[in-house]
């Protein structure tokens, strides 16, 4: 690796906290100034942001590159849908959906991480698992595939998912309500993961990412830490899947497929995996670009995404946010140097 492996995730200071407060205030005020269509689109970007966070926490945090975050995204979505349509307890179903994703991550992660398979193998196995999940779901179109009272519907997916019913509210969440809920969820997930990276646990993860063998020699059971991180990340992706089902009131096998899996990787690469905020920005930019490509009628989303991935890997392997950050600090350094030169004269 010829560039630094990752960020250091120090404890955030006052500017960070004020930015979070500002973001929260903006989120509360935003629906007043935005029309419903824009709120609806932004909500989907928030959900993509959570999904991007799940991958960047895993990759930037502990150095596991999972190509199959869509496994947990899809399972979270399907888990929520099947539970809510059977029980009508929607908040509970959202939580249980997260547990379904986390449980799958625990099983899959146990075999891969405790088997100590090579990192590249792990990436490819996760990719294969998500492809096979897609095939499995597509094969459930027959009337015999029913869980409780819900038909799985194979190719066509499950439409008409009821909205999220929060406690103390009389009605399911409106478009505006889902906007707030998803935005709040994104902020909380981001803050939670960012603060987690600044704790002792986070420092251990960074240590493992930089040199796993050295951490083992220091007495840490690195496999346990890697597995815990994998499970947390799977849970976060499943949470995004549940929110996706709430937002679109639809789940389908596309949630597992190759292009969805590649999108997550592209968000993280474009934004920069060494920060947690970068992938959220990457998700927003790429989702906006995809939507724009759709409206222009170019219809070449796959081509453009492939080209973006290649260009970023070859030319900007660190991603936008760290590259811009470097540029800024270099400019600041140059200014300081000039000023001290003047002083010397």
């Amino acid at each position, binding site marked *: 690796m010829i560039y630094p492996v990752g960020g250091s995730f120090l404890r955030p200071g006052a500017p960070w906290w004020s930015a979070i407060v500002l973001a929260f205030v903006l989120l509360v005020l935003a629906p007043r100034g935005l029309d419903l269509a824009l709120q609806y689109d932004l909500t989907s970007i928030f959900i993509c942001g959570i999904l991007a966070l799940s991958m960047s926490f895993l990759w930037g945090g502990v150095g596991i590159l999972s190509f199959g975050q869509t496994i947990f995204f899809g399972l979270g979505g399907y888990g929520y849908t099947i539970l809510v349509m059977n029980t009508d307890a929607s908040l509970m179903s959202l939580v249980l959906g997260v547990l379904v994703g986390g449980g799958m991550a625990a099983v899959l992660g146990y075999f891969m991480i405790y*088997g100590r398979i090579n990192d*590249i193998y792990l990436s490819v*196995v996760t990719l294969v698992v998500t492809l096979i999940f897609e095939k499995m779901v597509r094969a459930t179109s027959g009337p015999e595939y029913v869980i409780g009272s819900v038909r799985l519907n194979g190719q066509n997916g499950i439409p008409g998912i009821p909205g999220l019913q929060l406690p103390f509210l009389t009605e399911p969440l409106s478009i505006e309500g889902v906007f707030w809920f998803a935005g709040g969820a994104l902020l909380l997930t981001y803050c939670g993961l960012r603060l987690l990276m600044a704790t002792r646990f986070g420092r251990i993860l960074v240590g493992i990412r930089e040199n796993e063998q050295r951490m083992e020699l220091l007495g840490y059971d690195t496999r346990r830490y890697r597995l815990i991180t994998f499970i947390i990340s799977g849970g976060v992706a499943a949470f995004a899947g549940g929110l996706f089902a709430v937002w679109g009131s639809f789940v389908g096998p596309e949630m597992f497929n*190759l292009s969805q899996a590649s999108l997550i*990787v592209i968000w993280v690469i474009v934004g920069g995996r060494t920060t947690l905020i970068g992938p959220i920005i990457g998700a927003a930019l790429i989702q906006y670009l995809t939507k724009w490509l759709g409206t222009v009628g170019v219809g070449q989303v796959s081509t453009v995404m492939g080209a973006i*991935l290649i260009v970023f*890997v070859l030319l900007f392997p660190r991603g936008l946010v760290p590259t811009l950050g470097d540029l800024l600090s270099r400019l600041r350094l140059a200014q300081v140097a000039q000023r001290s030169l003047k002083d010397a004269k």
Partner: protein
Amino acid sequence: MITTYIYLIAYAVALLALISLGLSVIFGMMKVINLAHGEFMMLGAYACVYCSSLGLPFWASLIVATLAVGCFGLVVERLLIRHLYGRIVDTLLATWGLSLLLIGVSTAVFGPQARSMPGIPGTVAIGGTTMSVYSFVLIGVTILMMLVTWLIATRTKVGLVVRGTMQRPDIAGALGINTNLVYMGTFGFGAAAAGLAGAMLAPLTGATPLMGAAFVSKAFINVIVAGGLPLIGTSLASAMFGTVDAVISYLASSVAGEVAVLVFAVVLLRMLPQGITGRFRRGF
């Protein structure tokens, strides 16, 4: 009954070995999984269909498709892979980008509908089981391809250089071998093998932009479980997974067969994390 099983297993094993060979040669040499492997197969299928529509006989189309994708592989190596040696993760990501790019471009150029071509028609009945002639052709081509690869690797000077570079690239370099050239050639050979696999699939499934994705997941599992040695590993892993796949697919469904292969592979990797041939020091 027994003949049905033997036929199905032989066919599944041969198909698996055919679609994995190119991937495992590249993997054995550079320890990189070429995520665009499925799309190389797709290009082979389109090349074969195109040649066949020009009136070339089946065998000639097969050879042209193999060579064409091999040349394409050389170009890809020069333009893309060469810049990423030693950065394994980046190679993985770049080949994924290439895969998306090829799917997009071929959808734009050829359209999403399948292009079909005639293969070799006819069936034979042995012991009450009807078998297509083409499946025997496929098994034959696979054996021939494995044999050619084995002969090149073990009986020629080029093969010696390639095996040496695979084991110790630093020493090979110190002995005056241009390892970059070896990598380039290996990548081209792997791409050509993928092209041949795609061309052999064209009469069965037709050529579509997304055909690679349909086959490639089995090939990925196969190569990972096979471990570092392209020929021995692929043969062993294909024999194992082909059998599991054929039996479960016959008894349940093809999706169940794939799930069984995946579960079997994940459990096996828990015990043999480096694959079947991961601990082998020699061989090809």
